């Protein structure tokens, strides 16, 4: 059995367990919890492809989220395109914006903090553009017409949304596994660990990073498109504001960067935590993000390898003591 085949087992178990949730659980609040946690996992997976595997930290991943969301909404509202046709276009738009930003930043050698700030500037530019033009509804945003049913990629209950989000997250897990075991993934991780050394060995760092940002952009755009279908509405601050950039980044960091399961673990942990605080303190705006921020500081200070890293350290310690 090859390593990549061995990785399939846990993914199948996870997918089956998550797919059974709507049959076993009747509570709307719990279904909503799972849907939002999967949505958060997808964003964290997207960020993880570029930062965890590729070492390129983005502070403006909302630029891809918003691109996907606006492509999805504008195609349906302005051009009357069916949601199933709009979805692949939204993903392609996310990948295209990724290639565009990657071509500009990587071509000119922006790395580390400078790359992070550049992505943030792109998110701001897109927010201002979406806020200005009538095609994107300017400051008011876009609302997609209600048409419940599979044909319009909208559902009566939450179960349908859960399956759509789950399909994306499973695809994300497959991409993570592929990066762990494929040649492209090895190149990408080599560039992350030492770009000069990787290049000396013949890796085309520029093209490898471009590939990563395109995949990451498409995944984040999928989250944006999902958001529009789930909540039927998008505006410039929601789409390109800092909130989803932060959620993607914190989810991946808390779970463990550069791992297949880290983003999923991190997103579920974050959502559990923010639900618990909502129950404890009531729905005060700001509390859950405040906890995200504090958690971010603590994780970087004390557990730079995230929850998955902590778990792995615990397992190896137990094994040693036997």
């Amino acid at each position, binding site marked *: 059995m090859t390593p990549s085949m061995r990785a399939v087992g846990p993914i199948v178990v996870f997918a089956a367990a998550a797919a059974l949730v709507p049959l076993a659980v009747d509570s709307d609040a719990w279904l909503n919890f799972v849907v939002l946690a999967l949505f958060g996992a997808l964003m964290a997976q997207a960020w993880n492809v570029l930062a965890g595997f590729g070492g390129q930290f983005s502070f403006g991943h909302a630029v891809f989220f918003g691109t996907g969301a606006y492509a999805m909404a504008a195609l349906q509202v302005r051009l009357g395109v069916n949601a199933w046709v709009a979805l692949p276009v939204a993903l392609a738009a996310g990948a295209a914006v990724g290639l565009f930003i990657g071509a500009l930043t990587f071509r*000119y050698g922006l790395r580390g903090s400078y790359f*992070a700030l550049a992505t943030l500037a792109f998110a701001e530019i897109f927010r201002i*553009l979406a806020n*200005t033009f009538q095609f994107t509804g300017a400051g008011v945003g876009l609302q997609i017409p209600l048409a419940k049913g599979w044909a319009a990629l909208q559902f009566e209950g939450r179960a349908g949304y859960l399956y759509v989000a789950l399909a994306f997250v499973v695809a994300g897990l497959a991409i993570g596994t592929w990066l762990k075991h494929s040649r492209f993934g090895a190149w990408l991780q080599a560039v992350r660990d030492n770009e000069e050394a990787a290049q000396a060995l013949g890796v085309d760092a520029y093209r490898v990073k471009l590939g990563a940002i395109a995949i990451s952009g498409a995944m984040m755009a999928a989250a944006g498109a999902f958001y529009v279908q789930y909540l039927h509405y998008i505006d410039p601050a929601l789409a390109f504001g*800092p909130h989803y950039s*932060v959620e993607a980044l914190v989810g991946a960091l808390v779970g463990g960067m550069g791992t297949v399961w880290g983003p999923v673990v991190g997103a579920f942990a974050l959502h559990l935590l923010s639900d618990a605080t909502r129950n404890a303190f009531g729905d005060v*705006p*700001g509390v859950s993000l405040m906890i995200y921020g504090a958690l971010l500081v603590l994780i*970087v200070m004390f557990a730079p390898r995230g929850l998955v890293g902590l778990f792995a350290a615990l397992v190896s310690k137990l094994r040693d003591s036997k």
Partner: protein
Amino acid sequence: MLELSILWPSIANGLATGAIYALVALGLTLIYGVLHIINFAHGAALMVALYGVQLLFTRYGVDPYAALAVMVPAMFGFGYLLQRLVIGRASHGKDENILLVTLGIAIVLENLALVLFTADTRTIETRWSLATIDVAGAFIAVPKAIAFVGVLAAAAILLAVMARTDLGRAIRALAKERQGAKLVGIDVEHVFAMSFGIGLACLGAAACFLLPAYYVNPTVGNGFVLVAFTIVVLGGMGSFAGALLGGLLIGVVESVSGLYLGESLGQIGIFVIFLLVLMFRPTGLFGSKA
């Protein structure tokens, strides 16, 4: 082409705003130049200082300019402790970690303000708020004119501290040669924290000059973060003269591009400049080396 009679007031107002930007950027470039870290929490710290000024005024009737005596030392202490207790310990020697930690601090501060003060935008009204003065045909709000003069004075004090005092010499030594500074007996952790404190003290001063002509809400710092980074890369990372001139330049660019492109699209000019400088001239207009 617009008339000069419209253009000059726009430039004059831009210079006044740019002076505030310059002071914010001076703090940022000092922190970058010495610690070689990008302080992403700079905007959030400015927001904290603005709330400080606002509370001093509404609760205790302290004039914003008198509040300088409180806010500058308070922000210095805040910065010193932040570097010493949190940022310095979290770096593990990696730039990305510091960026992430300061991002985390920014998120905590911003949302703490949201919890404590709600999302409402607050302003203060002093006797000067609505007065204007005539500068060669351009009407400038008095608080902005005071800010322009005050910022230049504050910048002069900062430069004098850096050039003349032992602390300034230690900071400059540390910025140039970390190992050497250690060898001659400079307490590195202490001087790092002092630099961070001075960087935030600049924000304390900027907040006192800014608030009478501006507003405060929990996300007010976001607008300043990218502007300040733009100025710092434009002026050359770590260059004081660059930060001053860059600040004034960006203030004018923002004001004039707002005039030509409209209020919404006008903000785009700054971010485009930021990306262009990063890509084509990463050492900045005044920087000598990378």
